[in-house]
């Protein structure tokens, strides 16, 4: 039984169809990537699944429950959390406070000491321990990208949806973050990653979906995808290539 089922969803904005009948499944414990050129509708797809927008047609099932019409704050409590491509930290809160908001949001019943232990654990895991007292607005992008992941993890989610976590980072920063994703996967989280190009997903996952002009045009291993003719054509005219 899949953890997340997306069934034939569509979405238009002001007459412009952005998502045109997308269906796919994510199994429990899977690490799956979605790639696509600019304007393919990747971020919209994430916004639809995380409840920021609601699809015009189709349905989304999470853990056997229809979540199509649910709001983001309810979805988080059910175990579905996301990060943002363009980072959205609470700029005037410290790193630690940013994470505490997530604790508060999902309403942890644990004791204070348990919560503090969990906070330290997340800070340690994401490499933000030394920066816990810093205001988010003073952090460089590399740290903010990790804070995005840290907040999502702090909600205690089963399914993590990461929106272009590697975009805009230096090579060493990407390596660190990739390691973090692998660790999170290994402790049992199901992870769905959006990326612009397949390159960063090569070592992470065995399964990649390709979104182009609002449709899924290909599914396969990263190797298959990067050699596929249709996929290469979809990326034509862009400065960056599929690989």
């Amino acid at each position, binding site marked *: 039984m899949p953890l997340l089922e997306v069934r034939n969803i569509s979405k238009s904005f002001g007459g412009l169809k952005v998502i045109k009948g997308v269906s796919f499944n994510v199994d429990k414990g899977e690490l799956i990537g979605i790639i696509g050129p600019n304007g393919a509708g990747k971020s919209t797809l994430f916004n639809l699944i*995380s*409840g*920021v927008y609601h699809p015009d047609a189709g349905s989304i099932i999470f853990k056997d429950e229809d979540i199509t019409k649910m*709001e*983001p*704050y309810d979805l*988080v*409590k059910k175990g579905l*959390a*996301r990060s*943002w491509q363009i980072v*959205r*930290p*609470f*700029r*005037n*809160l410290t790193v630690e*406070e*940013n994470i*505490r*908001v*997530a604790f*508060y*949001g*999902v*309403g942890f019943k644990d004791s204070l000491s348990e919560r503090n232990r969990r906070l330290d654990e997340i800070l340690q895991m994401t490499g933000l321990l030394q920066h816990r007292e810093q205001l988010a607005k003073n952090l460089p992008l590399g740290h903010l990208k990790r804070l995005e992941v840290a*907040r999502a993890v*702090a*909600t205690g989610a089963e399914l993590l949806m990461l929106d272009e976590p590697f975009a805009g980072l230096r090579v060493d920063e990407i390596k660190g973050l990739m390691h973090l994703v692998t660790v999170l996967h290994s402790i049992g989280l199901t992870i769905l990653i959006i990326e612009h190009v397949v390159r960063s997903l090569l070592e992470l996952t065995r399964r990649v979906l390709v979104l182009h002009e609002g449709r899924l045009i290909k599914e396969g291993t990263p190797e298959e995808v990067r050699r596929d003719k249709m996929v290469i054509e979809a990326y034509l005219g862009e400065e960056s290539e599929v690989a």
Partner: protein
Amino acid sequence: MLRLKSLATLSSFKITGLILIIIMVVVPPALRDPYLLHILTLGSIYAIFAMSWDILMYTNQLSLGHSFFFGLAAYSTALFNSSLRMHPILAIIAAVAITAIVGLGLSIPFFKLRGAYYALGMAGLAKIATLTVTAYSDITGGEEGIRGITPLTTDHVGNYYIALATMLASLIFLYYTAEHSRFSLIFRAVRDDEVAAKCLGIVVHKYRLLCLVLGSAFAGLGGAVYATYLTIVNPNAMAIIPTTALVVTMGMVGGVTTIIGPALGAYLIVFLDSFFRVAENIRLLAYALTATLILLLLPGGIIRYAIKAANYLIREVRS
């Protein structure tokens, strides 16, 4: 934006506050100046109103129609007292309850409105209410308003203490709710990014609702005390111009989302206004120019600069 807590050490903050309160309690009545007491009483009432406007800002609700709640409570108090012959204290309590309930009800239509749309929706409400109050002259007295509301006391010092005590109670309650309660962190998160907060499980509209109910109830408290103090209420109390304009200026000049700032702003604006009264003809001009200058030169509001200055002084004295 700077937070008060991080600016001032807690103990110096508390000590300064305590000294200010003692001065406010002891000095003005000792001076035996009825006009000064009147200004300070009005300042205290407007301070309650300004803080009630500020609590909405904690969840990004910029209200350009806040006079609606102030006027609603002032008129309710007047009507309960003059038509239903209720004791002024009972009338005040009933009026505050009504404004709080209206604020609660308004959260439904205002649920989706954000930013300028929200501000305008509130302004529209105030405008409609003001026009209606003026039109329904049988009950409200039209432009003339309602006169002869029973005052709580006719003693200057008594009135001053009533207004001051109400102001201080409101200040302590609102300040602790906004800055030191478990809501404080959520308010700040929502203020920075509502959508991100939603995606971390924060039911944003619940907090907006909380602030709207607090904001309307305390605006109502201000309006009700205002009505019993002046013993008269007219459509101006509800009108965007001057009343909303006044409260927004007080808040901005004092410093938004600090609670204490708007309260200080209220006293400052009332003082400025009475200071320029000596030159009646240029009074409003001078007042508007001064407030403009403060906004241009101290964009964060006077409270932030006042605390910085105080901290600097404390450091200088110690070294």
